[in-house]
Protein backbone atom coordinates (compact mmCIF):
# COMPACT_ATOMS: atom_id res chain seq x y z
CA UNK A 1 0.00 0.00 0.00
CA UNK A 2 1.49 3.32 -0.95
CA UNK A 3 0.30 6.88 -0.54
CA UNK A 4 -0.61 9.52 -0.68
CA UNK A 5 -4.28 9.03 -1.74
CA UNK A 6 -5.09 12.71 -1.31
CA UNK A 7 -3.37 13.94 -4.48
CA UNK A 8 -6.55 14.85 -6.39
CA UNK A 9 -8.42 16.44 -3.53
CA UNK A 10 -9.38 20.09 -3.48
CA UNK A 11 -9.49 21.75 -0.08
CA UNK A 12 -10.82 25.06 1.14
CA UNK A 13 -9.44 26.86 4.20
CA UNK A 14 -11.69 29.50 5.78
CA UNK A 15 -9.78 31.39 8.45
CA UNK A 16 -9.30 35.08 9.18
CA UNK A 17 -5.79 34.72 10.54
CA UNK A 18 -3.18 34.59 7.79
CA UNK A 19 -0.68 32.69 9.96
CA UNK A 20 -3.21 29.97 10.71
CA UNK A 21 -4.14 29.74 7.02
CA UNK A 22 -0.49 29.34 6.16
CA UNK A 23 0.01 26.65 8.80
CA UNK A 24 -3.09 24.72 7.74
CA UNK A 25 -2.00 24.88 4.12
CA UNK A 26 1.42 23.50 5.06
CA UNK A 27 -0.16 20.67 7.05
CA UNK A 28 -2.48 19.74 4.18
CA UNK A 29 0.49 19.88 1.81
CA UNK A 30 2.29 17.38 4.03
CA UNK A 31 -0.41 14.74 3.34
CA UNK A 32 -0.37 15.46 -0.37
CA UNK A 33 -3.22 17.97 -0.78
CA UNK A 34 -1.87 20.65 -3.07
CA UNK A 35 -4.99 22.22 -4.56
CA UNK A 36 -6.05 24.53 -1.76
CA UNK A 37 -8.15 27.70 -1.86
CA UNK A 38 -8.22 30.19 0.98
CA UNK A 39 -10.89 32.56 2.26
CA UNK A 40 -10.74 34.92 5.21
CA UNK A 41 -14.46 34.74 6.06
CA UNK A 42 -17.61 32.82 5.28
CA UNK A 43 -18.96 35.03 2.52
CA UNK A 44 -15.71 34.78 0.57
CA UNK A 45 -15.75 31.01 1.11
CA UNK A 46 -19.24 30.72 -0.37
CA UNK A 47 -18.08 32.55 -3.49
CA UNK A 48 -15.10 30.20 -3.78
CA UNK A 49 -17.31 27.15 -3.33
CA UNK A 50 -19.47 28.33 -6.22
CA UNK A 51 -16.44 28.86 -8.46
CA UNK A 52 -14.56 25.72 -7.63
CA UNK A 53 -15.33 22.25 -6.30
CA UNK A 54 -14.07 21.52 -2.78
CA UNK A 55 -13.78 18.03 -1.28
CA UNK A 56 -12.80 19.12 2.22
CA UNK A 57 -13.38 22.33 4.15
CA UNK A 58 -11.48 23.54 7.19
CA UNK A 59 -13.16 26.54 8.80
CA UNK A 60 -12.60 28.79 11.76
CA UNK A 61 -15.59 29.69 13.93
CA UNK A 62 -15.22 33.40 14.75
CA UNK A 63 -14.86 35.51 11.60
CA UNK A 64 -16.42 38.71 10.25
CA UNK A 65 -18.62 39.49 8.39
CA UNK A 66 -19.78 35.87 8.15
CA UNK A 67 -18.68 33.38 10.80
CA UNK A 68 -18.08 29.65 10.48
CA UNK A 69 -21.50 28.70 11.84
CA UNK A 70 -23.41 30.75 9.30
CA UNK A 71 -21.12 29.48 6.56
CA UNK A 72 -21.72 25.86 7.61
CA UNK A 73 -25.49 26.39 7.72
CA UNK A 74 -25.33 27.84 4.21
CA UNK A 75 -23.36 24.87 2.87
CA UNK A 76 -25.72 22.35 4.44
CA UNK A 77 -29.07 24.03 3.82
CA UNK A 78 -29.01 26.57 1.03
CA UNK A 79 -30.58 25.55 -2.29
CA UNK A 80 -27.62 27.11 -4.09
CA UNK A 81 -25.04 25.10 -2.11
CA UNK A 82 -22.79 23.23 -4.53
CA UNK A 83 -22.12 20.34 -2.14
CA UNK A 84 -24.25 20.02 1.01
CA UNK A 85 -22.42 16.80 1.95
CA UNK A 86 -18.88 18.20 1.91
CA UNK A 87 -16.94 17.30 5.09
CA UNK A 88 -16.43 20.39 7.25
CA UNK A 89 -13.87 20.47 10.04
CA UNK A 90 -14.38 23.44 12.34
CA UNK A 91 -11.20 24.63 14.03
CA UNK A 92 -11.65 27.02 16.91
CA UNK A 93 -10.22 28.36 20.12
CA UNK A 94 -13.80 28.76 21.34
CA UNK A 95 -14.19 25.44 23.08
CA UNK A 96 -16.99 26.27 25.47
CA UNK A 97 -19.63 23.55 25.43
CA UNK A 98 -22.38 25.81 24.09
CA UNK A 99 -20.21 26.83 21.14
CA UNK A 100 -19.24 23.23 20.32
CA UNK A 101 -22.93 22.31 20.42
CA UNK A 102 -23.75 25.25 18.15
CA UNK A 103 -21.13 23.98 15.68
CA UNK A 104 -22.57 20.49 15.82
CA UNK A 105 -26.10 21.82 15.29
CA UNK A 106 -24.94 23.93 12.33
CA UNK A 107 -23.80 20.68 10.69
CA UNK A 108 -20.03 20.47 11.06
CA UNK A 109 -18.53 17.04 10.52
CA UNK A 110 -15.70 17.36 13.03
CA UNK A 111 -14.65 19.94 15.62
CA UNK A 112 -10.98 20.58 16.33
CA UNK A 113 -9.97 22.70 19.31
CA UNK A 114 -7.03 25.03 19.01
CA UNK A 115 -4.12 24.83 19.64
CA UNK A 116 -3.72 22.83 16.46
CA UNK A 117 -1.39 19.90 16.25
CA UNK A 118 -0.71 17.90 13.12
CA UNK A 119 -1.68 14.76 14.99
CA UNK A 120 -5.11 16.14 15.93
CA UNK A 121 -5.84 17.50 12.48
CA UNK A 122 -4.85 14.23 10.82
CA UNK A 123 -6.95 12.28 13.33
CA UNK A 124 -10.04 14.29 12.32
CA UNK A 125 -9.31 13.74 8.62
CA UNK A 126 -8.79 10.02 9.26
CA UNK A 127 -12.15 9.89 11.04
CA UNK A 128 -13.86 11.36 7.97
CA UNK A 129 -12.10 8.91 5.65
CA UNK A 130 -12.43 5.81 7.80
CA UNK A 131 -15.87 6.29 9.37
CA UNK A 132 -17.96 8.53 7.12
CA UNK A 133 -21.13 9.48 8.93
CA UNK A 134 -24.69 9.10 7.78
CA UNK A 135 -26.53 12.34 7.09
CA UNK A 136 -29.77 13.22 8.76
CA UNK A 137 -32.56 15.31 7.31
CA UNK A 138 -35.30 16.37 9.71
CA UNK A 139 -37.23 19.46 10.75
CA UNK A 140 -34.65 22.11 11.51
CA UNK A 141 -31.54 20.11 10.72
CA UNK A 142 -29.61 18.75 7.81
CA UNK A 143 -26.10 17.46 8.38
CA UNK A 144 -23.99 14.61 9.70
CA UNK A 145 -25.66 12.32 12.20
CA UNK A 146 -25.12 13.98 15.57
CA UNK A 147 -25.36 10.68 17.43
CA UNK A 148 -21.94 9.13 17.08
CA UNK A 149 -22.75 5.96 18.95
CA UNK A 150 -25.68 3.63 19.53
CA UNK A 151 -25.83 3.71 23.31
CA UNK A 152 -27.52 0.90 25.19
CA UNK A 153 -28.40 3.31 28.00
CA UNK A 154 -29.88 5.96 25.66
CA UNK A 155 -32.86 7.45 27.47
CA UNK A 156 -33.90 10.21 25.04
CA UNK A 157 -36.90 10.15 22.72
CA UNK A 158 -37.08 7.52 19.95
CA UNK A 159 -37.90 9.44 16.80
CA UNK A 160 -36.26 7.83 13.83
CA UNK A 161 -37.69 5.15 11.60
CA UNK A 162 -34.72 2.88 12.30
CA UNK A 163 -34.95 3.61 16.03
CA UNK A 164 -38.25 1.74 16.07
CA UNK A 165 -36.68 -1.26 14.43
CA UNK A 166 -33.84 -1.24 16.94
CA UNK A 167 -36.20 -0.78 19.85
CA UNK A 168 -38.53 -3.55 18.74
CA UNK A 169 -35.64 -5.92 18.24
CA UNK A 170 -34.65 -5.66 21.92
Amino acid at each position, binding site marked *: *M*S*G*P*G*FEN*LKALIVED*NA*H*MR*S*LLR*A*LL*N*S*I*GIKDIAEASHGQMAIELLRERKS*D*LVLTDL*AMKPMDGLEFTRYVRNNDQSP*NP*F*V*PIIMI*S*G*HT*ERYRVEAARDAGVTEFLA*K*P*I*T*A*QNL*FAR*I*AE*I*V*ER*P*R*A*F*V*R*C*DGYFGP*DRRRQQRDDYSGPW*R*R*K*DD*FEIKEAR
Partner: protein
Amino acid sequence: MRKSGKPKVQLIAPDSYPQMLSKPRAARALHTLRAPETAAKAQMAMEEAMPAMRAAILQYVEEMERAAGDMTRLFDAAHEIRGFAETAGMVTTGRIAEVLCRYMDDMTRFGRPLDATIVALHVAAIARAARAEDDNVRTGQAVAAELAALVAKRLSEAE
Protein backbone atom coordinates in the same frame (compact mmCIF):
# COMPACT_ATOMS: atom_id res chain seq x y z
CA MET B 1 -44.86 4.66 17.45
CA ARG B 2 -45.56 6.28 14.07
CA LYS B 3 -48.44 4.51 12.31
CA SER B 4 -48.49 6.03 8.85
CA GLY B 5 -47.07 8.75 6.62
CA LYS B 6 -43.53 9.60 5.66
CA PRO B 7 -40.91 9.35 8.39
CA LYS B 8 -40.05 12.76 9.79
CA VAL B 9 -36.40 11.85 9.94
CA GLN B 10 -34.51 10.73 6.85
CA LEU B 11 -31.19 8.94 7.33
CA ILE B 12 -28.83 9.06 4.36
CA ALA B 13 -26.25 6.31 4.55
CA PRO B 14 -22.62 7.09 3.62
CA ASP B 15 -22.90 4.88 0.53
CA SER B 16 -25.79 7.02 -0.71
CA TYR B 17 -23.95 10.31 -1.02
CA PRO B 18 -20.61 11.22 -2.67
CA GLN B 19 -17.64 10.50 -0.44
CA MET B 20 -14.47 12.57 -0.22
CA LEU B 21 -12.45 9.57 -1.47
CA SER B 22 -13.22 6.29 -3.23
CA LYS B 23 -12.60 3.17 -1.15
CA PRO B 24 -9.20 2.26 -2.72
CA ARG B 25 -8.05 5.85 -2.34
CA ALA B 26 -9.33 5.95 1.24
CA ALA B 27 -7.13 3.02 2.18
CA ARG B 28 -4.08 4.74 0.68
CA ALA B 29 -5.01 8.01 2.34
CA LEU B 30 -5.26 6.39 5.77
CA HIS B 31 -1.85 4.84 5.23
CA THR B 32 -0.47 8.27 4.38
CA LEU B 33 -2.07 9.90 7.42
CA ARG B 34 -0.46 7.35 9.73
CA ALA B 35 2.95 7.11 8.08
CA PRO B 36 5.98 8.27 10.10
CA GLU B 37 7.26 10.24 7.09
CA THR B 38 4.00 12.23 7.05
CA ALA B 39 4.42 13.04 10.74
CA ALA B 40 7.99 14.16 10.05
CA LYS B 41 6.90 16.38 7.15
CA ALA B 42 4.14 17.91 9.26
CA GLN B 43 6.52 18.51 12.15
CA MET B 44 8.89 20.28 9.79
CA ALA B 45 6.01 22.42 8.51
CA MET B 46 5.08 23.36 12.07
CA GLU B 47 8.66 24.27 12.92
CA GLU B 48 9.01 26.39 9.79
CA ALA B 49 5.84 28.29 10.68
CA MET B 50 6.87 28.97 14.28
CA PRO B 51 9.12 32.06 13.94
CA ALA B 52 6.45 33.97 12.00
CA MET B 53 3.80 32.86 14.44
CA ARG B 54 5.85 33.94 17.45
CA ALA B 55 6.42 37.34 15.84
CA ALA B 56 2.68 37.63 15.21
CA ILE B 57 1.92 36.77 18.84
CA LEU B 58 4.17 39.62 19.97
CA GLN B 59 2.27 41.97 17.65
CA TYR B 60 -1.02 40.84 19.18
CA VAL B 61 0.46 41.44 22.64
CA GLU B 62 1.27 45.01 21.62
CA GLU B 63 -2.22 45.38 20.18
CA MET B 64 -3.67 44.17 23.48
CA GLU B 65 -1.56 46.63 25.46
CA ARG B 66 -2.55 49.49 23.15
CA ALA B 67 -6.24 48.56 23.44
CA ALA B 68 -6.28 49.83 27.05
CA GLY B 69 -9.97 50.28 27.94
CA ASP B 70 -11.34 49.06 24.59
CA MET B 71 -12.50 45.63 25.72
CA THR B 72 -13.68 44.47 22.28
CA ARG B 73 -10.29 45.21 20.74
CA LEU B 74 -8.54 43.67 23.71
CA PHE B 75 -10.65 40.51 23.51
CA ASP B 76 -10.01 40.16 19.76
CA ALA B 77 -6.24 40.30 20.32
CA ALA B 78 -6.41 37.91 23.30
CA HIS B 79 -8.52 35.54 21.23
CA GLU B 80 -5.89 35.44 18.47
CA ILE B 81 -3.21 34.75 21.07
CA ARG B 82 -5.27 31.95 22.59
CA GLY B 83 -5.77 30.57 19.10
CA PHE B 84 -2.22 29.90 18.16
CA ALA B 85 0.26 30.75 20.94
CA GLU B 86 0.46 27.13 22.03
CA THR B 87 0.89 25.99 18.44
CA ALA B 88 3.80 28.44 18.25
CA GLY B 89 5.33 26.83 21.34
CA MET B 90 4.32 29.68 23.69
CA VAL B 91 2.40 27.46 26.04
CA THR B 92 2.08 29.69 29.12
CA THR B 93 1.14 32.70 26.98
CA GLY B 94 -1.61 30.69 25.34
CA ARG B 95 -2.96 29.36 28.63
CA ILE B 96 -3.17 32.79 30.26
CA ALA B 97 -4.89 34.17 27.15
CA GLU B 98 -7.32 31.24 27.32
CA VAL B 99 -8.23 32.14 30.93
CA LEU B 100 -8.65 35.82 30.03
CA CYS B 101 -10.92 34.99 27.07
CA ARG B 102 -13.00 32.63 29.18
CA TYR B 103 -13.36 35.28 31.87
CA MET B 104 -14.37 38.03 29.40
CA ASP B 105 -16.69 35.75 27.45
CA ASP B 106 -18.50 34.32 30.49
CA MET B 107 -18.87 37.65 32.32
CA THR B 108 -20.38 39.15 29.18
CA ARG B 109 -22.71 36.16 28.87
CA PHE B 110 -23.78 36.55 32.52
CA GLY B 111 -24.37 40.26 31.88
CA ARG B 112 -21.83 41.21 34.54
CA PRO B 113 -19.27 44.03 34.33
CA LEU B 114 -15.63 43.16 33.74
CA ASP B 115 -13.21 43.82 36.57
CA ALA B 116 -10.54 46.06 35.01
CA THR B 117 -7.92 44.86 37.51
CA ILE B 118 -8.39 41.22 36.54
CA VAL B 119 -8.12 42.12 32.87
CA ALA B 120 -5.02 44.26 33.44
CA LEU B 121 -3.36 41.49 35.48
CA HIS B 122 -3.89 39.05 32.63
CA VAL B 123 -2.63 41.45 30.00
CA ALA B 124 0.54 42.04 32.02
CA ALA B 125 1.04 38.31 32.59
CA ILE B 126 0.51 37.49 28.90
CA ALA B 127 2.99 40.20 27.88
CA ARG B 128 5.59 38.98 30.37
CA ALA B 129 5.22 35.35 29.35
CA ALA B 130 5.32 36.17 25.62
CA ARG B 131 8.46 38.24 25.97
CA ALA B 132 10.28 35.81 28.24
CA GLU B 133 12.98 33.90 26.45
CA ASP B 134 11.87 30.66 28.00
CA ASP B 135 8.10 30.74 27.86
CA ASN B 136 7.70 27.70 30.01
CA VAL B 137 9.41 28.97 33.16
CA ARG B 138 8.00 27.84 36.44
CA THR B 139 7.12 31.40 37.43
CA GLY B 140 4.92 31.82 34.41
CA GLN B 141 3.11 28.58 35.13
CA ALA B 142 2.53 29.63 38.74
CA VAL B 143 1.12 32.99 37.62
CA ALA B 144 -1.14 31.22 35.11
CA ALA B 145 -2.45 28.88 37.82
CA GLU B 146 -3.11 31.76 40.24
CA LEU B 147 -4.95 33.78 37.61
CA ALA B 148 -7.03 30.74 36.64
CA ALA B 149 -8.01 30.27 40.31
CA LEU B 150 -8.91 33.95 40.63
CA VAL B 151 -11.10 33.85 37.52
CA ALA B 152 -12.80 30.61 38.60
CA LYS B 153 -13.68 32.25 41.93
CA ARG B 154 -15.05 35.40 40.31
CA LEU B 155 -17.06 33.41 37.77
CA SER B 156 -18.58 31.20 40.46
CA GLU B 157 -19.60 34.38 42.31
CA ALA B 158 -21.05 35.83 39.11
CA GLU B 159 -23.19 32.81 38.17
